[in-house]
C-alpha cells in the first residue's frame, strides 16, 4: 500500500472535482490518495507550509491563474510552485494550465522545471491518468503541446531573451507599443530598439508589427 499525498490548487471547484474524479478512477489498487484542495493562493500557501512541517506532499497540482494572496506576495501558480520547490524539495510539481502560448510555456519550463506540465485544452482523462502514473514513477511528463513547443524552440536557431519574449507576447495580446513600458520596466525607446532588433532577427522586411508576430508564431515563440 502506498499513500500518496496530493495538493490540488485551482480556482474552479469543478476542475478540482474533475481532477479528483479522474485520479480516483485511475489510481492503482495499492495506492491510497490523500487529496487536499485549495481555491486560492492564501489557502495553498498555508497548506504548503503546514506540509513542510509535517508530511510533505508527494504531488502538487498547480493552476497558473489564481486569485492572488492577500498580502500580494503570491499572485499565481508559478509563485506557489516556486514556494513548494523551496519548502518541499522532494515533491513532484505538476503545472496544469489553460495557457498554451509558447511565451508562458517557455517561462514556466525555465523558472519552475516542473515534473509534469499539462495544458488543459488538450487534456483528456486518459492523458491525465498517464501523466499521474508517470510522474509518480519516472518524471517528467509533458503534454503533447508542451513537447511540440520544446521541439520547435530547440530546432530554431534564434535566441530570444525573456524580455523580448514578453514584448512579443504582449504585442500579440494587442497591447500598443507606447503602453508596453507600463508592463515592462523599460523606456519606450528601449522597447522600440528591442522591437527593431526582433524584426531583424525574424527577417521582417516590411517593418510591420503584424509580420513580426506572424513570424514569431510560426517559429514557435508565440
Amino acid at each position, binding site marked *: 500500500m502506498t499513500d500518496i499525498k496530493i495538493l490540488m490548487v485551482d480556482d*474552479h471547484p469543478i*476542475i478540482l472535482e474533475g481532477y479528483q474524479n479522474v485520479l480516483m478512477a485511475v489510481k492503482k489498487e495499492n495506492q491510497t490518495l490523500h487529496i487536499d484542495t485549495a481555491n486560492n493562493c492564501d489557502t495553498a500557501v498555508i497548506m504548503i507550509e503546514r506540509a513542510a512541517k509535517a508530511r510533505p506532499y508527494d504531488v502538487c497540482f498547480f*493552476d497558473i491563474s489564481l486569485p492572488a494572496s492577500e498580502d500580494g506576495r503570491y499572485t499565481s501558480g508559478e509563485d506557489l510552485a516556486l514556494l513548494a520547490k523551496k519548502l518541499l524539495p522532494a515533491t513532484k510539481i505538476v503545472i496544469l494550465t489553460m495557457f498554451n502560448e509558447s511565451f508562458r510555456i517557455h517561462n514556466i519550463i525555465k523558472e519552475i522545471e516542473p515534473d509534469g506540465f499539462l495544458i488543459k485544452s488538450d487534456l483528456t482523462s486518459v492523458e491525465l491518468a498517464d501523466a499521474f502514473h508517470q510522474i509518480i514513477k519516472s518524471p517528467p511528463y509533458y503534454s503533447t503541446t508542451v513537447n511540440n513547443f520544446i521541439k520547435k524552440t530547440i530546432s530554431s536557431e534564434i535566441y530570444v531573451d525573456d524580455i523580448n519574449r514578453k514584448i512579443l507576447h504582449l504585442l500579440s495580446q494587442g497591447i500598443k507599443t507606447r503602453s508596453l513600458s507600463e508592463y515592462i520596466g523599460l523606456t519606450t525607446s528601449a522597447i522600440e530598439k528591442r522591437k527593431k532588433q526582433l524584426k531583424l532577427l525574424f527577417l521582417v522586411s516590411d517593418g510591420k508589427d503584424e509580420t513580426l508576430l506572424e513570424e514569431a508564431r510560426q517559429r514557435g515563440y508565440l
Partner: protein
Amino acid sequence: MKPLKFKFVYCLLVLSLTCFSQNKKSLLDSIIELRRLSNQSSLTNNQRVAAALRANELSKSSAHDTTYFKSDRNLSFVYLMTGNYDQFGESTLNNLELATKLNDSIAIGIANKNLGYYYYQIKEDNSTAYKYYLNALIYFDALSNLREQAEILTSIAAIQDDEKDYLGSEQNAIEALKILNSLDYYKDQYLDKYLVLNLLGIVSLKLGNYEESISYHNQAIELTKRLKNNYYLNLQSKNNLAITYRDKGDLETTLSIYRELLEETEVLKKDMSFYALVLENYAFTKFLYGNYEYKTLESDLKYALKIGDSIEDQYTILAVSIDLAKFYKANKKKDSALKYAKESYKISKDIPINDLYLESMLILANLTKGEESKSYLEEHIALSDSLLDRERKVRNKFARIKYGTDQLEAKNKQISKENLYLLILSIGLLLTAILVYLVISQRAKNRKLRLVQVQQKANEAIYNLLLGQQDKVDEARAKEKIRVSKELHDGVLGRLFGARLSLDVMNSKEGKEAVKTRANYIAQLKTIEEDIRKISHELNTDFVAGSGFIEILTELIETQSKAYGLGHEFKYDFDISWDLVPNKTKINMYRIIQESMQNIFKHAEAKTIKISISLEKNVICLDIIDDGIGFDTSKSKKGIGLKNMTSRAADCDGTITLSSQINQGSTINVKIPYLSETL
C-alpha cells in the same frame, strides 16, 4: 404758358450758341487769311499794313489770347518789313506784354530781342537796347536756345564796343564765338560768325592787342570766301586789317593791303563813301610813311574830299579834313592846315564823333597861338573829361542793368531752388505716407494672421481632445476585450474543462450513481452556456460608441459653468451618431459653445445656462439659452466673438441666429446640416 416760354428761350439760346461758334470759326479763317495777305510782298506796303492791322483788330475782338498774340507779332513783323519802325517798336512792346501774359517764354525772348534791335538800331538808345538784350539772353539761356544766345551776345558785344566797354565786349564776343563754333551748321552760321570775328578784330585793336586783332580779321577774311555776296565784306575786313597794321606801325603791310584793295576800284565804287574812306586811308598812310610826293598826295586827299562832298558824307569829309589839316601842318602850310582844322572842328561838332572832334581841337590848339589855342585846349580837356565821365556813367549803368538782371536771375534760381526743396519735401512726405501705409497694412495683416494662428491652435487643441477621447475609447475597448478574454479563459473555459474532464471519466461508468453525477455536470454545462450568452450579449452592446464628443462637451460645459459660477443644463439627442459628423463641425460646435458661454459670463449676468443639441429633419440644432439681462439686437454692434461664431457656423454650412430682448435673456440658435443629402 410758362413752360412754353422757357422752351422758346432755350431754343433761342441754342441757336445763338451755334451761330456764335460758326462765327468764331469764320472769324479765325478770316484772321489767318488777312495775316497771309499782310505777308505778300506783291502788295504795297500800305495794303500789307492795313491787312495786318485788320487781322490784329479781329483777333483782339476774338478774345482769344494766343490768336491775338500771333496777329500782333505778325503786325510788328509787317511794320518792320515795311519800314514803319516806330510802329514796329510800339507793336513789339505790346507783343512783349501779350507774351508775358501768355507766359510763353520763347515769345517773350523773341519780343525782348526785337526790342533790343529796335532800341539799338533805330532809336540808338544803347542802354535800353542793352537791357532788352540782356532780358532776351536770360530767356534763351533758360530755353537753351544757343543760336539766339550767340546772336544776342554779338549784339550786346557791339553795344559795349560802341560804349567803349571793350573788355566786356571782347568777353561777350568770345562767348558768342564759342557758342557758334559748338553749333551744327545752319544757314546763316558763317555770316553770324563773320560778324563776331569782325567785331573781335575791331575790339582787340581798341584794346591794343594788334596780333589778336590781325588774327581775327584774317579769320574773318577767310570766312568771307564762303559767303555769298561776300565781296563787300571781304573788302571791309581788309580795310579793317589795314587799319590794324597801320595802328600797329607796320605801314608797309598797310600800304600793300591798300594797294591790293584799290585794284578792285570797280567794286569799291559801288559804295562811294567806302571808296572815299579807302582812298583817304591809303593817302594818309602814305603820308605817315613819309617819302611821298607832295602833289600826288595832296591831289589824292582832295579827290577823296571831293567824293565826300559829292555824296554829302559828313564822316568822310570830316576824316579827310583832319588828314588834310595834319598834312598841311606837317608841310608847314599853316593857313591851309588851319582852314581844314576849323572845317573838321565844325563838322565834328555837328555829328558827334568825339574822337575826331577831340583830334581836331588838338590840331587847332597846336596851330593857333595865345588865348585861342588855350581855349581849344581847355575845350579839349573839358570834352575828354566829360566823355570819360559819360563812359564811366554808361558803364555803371550797364553794370546796374546787368546787376538787376543778375538779381532777377538769382531770384529765379532761388525760386527754382525753393521749388526743388518743396519737391523733395513732398516726395519725402509721400514716401513717408507710403511707408506708414505699408507698415499699418502689414501690421493689420500680421494681426489677422496671428488671429488665424490662434484660431488654428484652438482648433488643434480641440482636435487633440477629440483624438484623445478616441484613444480613451480605444483603450476602453482594448481593456474590455482583455476582460472578456479573461472571463472566457478563466471562468468559462476552466469550468468547461472541469466538466469535460469529469464527464470523460464518468463516460465509461454505468449505474444510477454515474447517471446522477453526469446529470449534475450536464446542468453545469447549462450554466456555463448561460454565462457565455451573457458575455456574448455584453460584447454585442457597444458601450463606448459615439459617446466621445458628448463627453467632451459635457466636460467643457461642466468646467466652464463651474468656473463662471453658472447653473447649467445640457440635453442632447442620442440619435446623433457623432462618428459620422465631420471633425470640423464638431470643432466648430465646441468653439461656438465655448465662445457663447464666455460671452454670457462676461455680458449677460445670467444665473443659468441651457444648452441643447437636437436633431430635427437631418439638421443638428444647437440652442444656447441664458436667463441674463439680454440686449437689443438691433442696437448692439457685432463684436469679434459674434463675428467668429458666425464665421464658424458658416464654415460648416450652418447658420446662426441670435435673439434677445432686454431683461429676457438671450438665445443663440445654430443649425448645421447633419448628413449630406447624398449619404
